[in-house]
């Protein structure tokens, strides 16, 4: 009787532990995926985390819109839906160093869980004015890199900053990404056209190319092609759909502004 009770007791403890491992892995995967890590990196991190807690039969399947995580031989399967996808690489890097720490051993699972929740919750982005300033500076630098004229720096600076400010503002207004990208690229196009009209800018093409660069989905496109090449076919195709839609929104917005010119 006593022995039976003991076995049951340890089993229960074990099951709780397995559940917590699954929760930790899925939370780490969710943070990584929401903040712009690559698909295989998310899967790899989740599997390694599970292995570090000596759960060796973990399987994970990651797509841009959801994560499935299961532990073989146990009744543990977790599914997480991902609705928000942005790029915040500081969080990616924090989760990475946490998982590295776990792999070195000696970490308590409760502690890791608590710290992951903390990383998930806090907002640790650079201030918005700095992001806008960065976009503006990047736009005018791109103008020079693409061999534009020095006189066009100011219009590119203004248009690029306005584009980033528009993205932040419209994104707060609506969660439909297509709309916010469309509106901010219209803003960029209109400012560029206006600057040429009043004689402040000279080459319309170069100004627009420079100023639209912060909006262009360069990373999603590259990651999409890369995922397909690496064998993550589902996420590669869905990412390229998303990137194509973004490029389309920007193109239509710019076309709209050009039609006015």
């Amino acid at each position, binding site marked *: 009787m006593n022995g039976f009770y003991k076995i049951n007791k340890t089993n229960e403890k074990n099951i709780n532990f397995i559940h917590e491992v699954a929760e930790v892995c899925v939370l780490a995967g969710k943070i990584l995926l929401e903040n712009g890590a690559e698909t295989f*990196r998310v899967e790899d991190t989740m599997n390694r985390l599970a292995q570090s807690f000596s759960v060796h039969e973990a399987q994970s399947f990651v797509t841009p819109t959801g994560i499935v995580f299961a532990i073989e031989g146990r009744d543990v399967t977790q599914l997480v839906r991902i609705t928000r996808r942005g790029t915040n*690489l500081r969080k990616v890097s924090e989760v990475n*160093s946490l998982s590295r720490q776990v792999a070195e051993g000696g970490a308590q699972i409760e502690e890791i869980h608590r710290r992951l929740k903390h990383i998930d919750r806090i907002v640790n982005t*650079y201030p918005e004015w700095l992001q806008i300033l*960065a976009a503006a500076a990047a736009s005018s*630098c*791109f103008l020079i890199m693409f061999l534009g004229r020095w006189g066009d720096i100011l219009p590119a600076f203004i248009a690029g900053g306005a584009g980033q400010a528009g993205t932040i503002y419209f994104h707060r207004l609506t969660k439909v990404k297509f709309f916010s990208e469309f509106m901010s690229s219209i803003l960029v196009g209109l400012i560029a056209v206006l600057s040429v009209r009043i004689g402040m800018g000279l080459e319309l093409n170069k100004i627009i190319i420079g100023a639209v660069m912060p909006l262009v989905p360069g990373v999603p496109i*590259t990651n999409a*092609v890369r995922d397909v090449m690496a064998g993550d076919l589902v996420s590669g195709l869905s990412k390229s759909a998303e990137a194509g839609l973004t490029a389309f929104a920007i193109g239509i917005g710019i076309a709209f502004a050009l039609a006015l010119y």
Partner: protein
Amino acid sequence: MKVNELGIIITFLIQSMTSFIATCAFGIIYNIPRKPLIHGGLIGAIAWLIYFFLYQWNGNDFVATFAASFVIALTSQIFARLYKNPVIVYSVAGIIPLVPGGLTYTVMSRVVGDHYDMAIHLAEKAFVLSGAIAMGLIFAEVLYQIFKKNFFDKVKKLNTGVTFSRK
């Protein structure tokens, strides 16, 4: 001749400075922590200089894009190993200048002007160029993996007498 050399040096300085600033600025938009931001800026500047001068030299943008993204991925792997950060933190901002944004813009302006044949022609080219970026990234990664398997693991084996395999 003297003037020409001076011009090249000035172009070199201007291009390296602007690409460094632009890459760092993109790092700020992507919210990269401060130290990898500077390293990423350096990687981006080197890659852009390779792209720029290779393109000026032989005019083939596929080769130039491929070479630049290859260098980005390789140096990012090295930095990531040295400073224990994910690779994407270093590579992401450097890729941005290589993305054929200007070409995509031209495609759109051709579409607006009802020149669909030109637009599709250029869109194909933009697609191939983004393929070149991805190929450069994958090649560098594969090369790094092979190198690691044949070099680092052997060193570990020599040091400890047992083979380590993480997987």
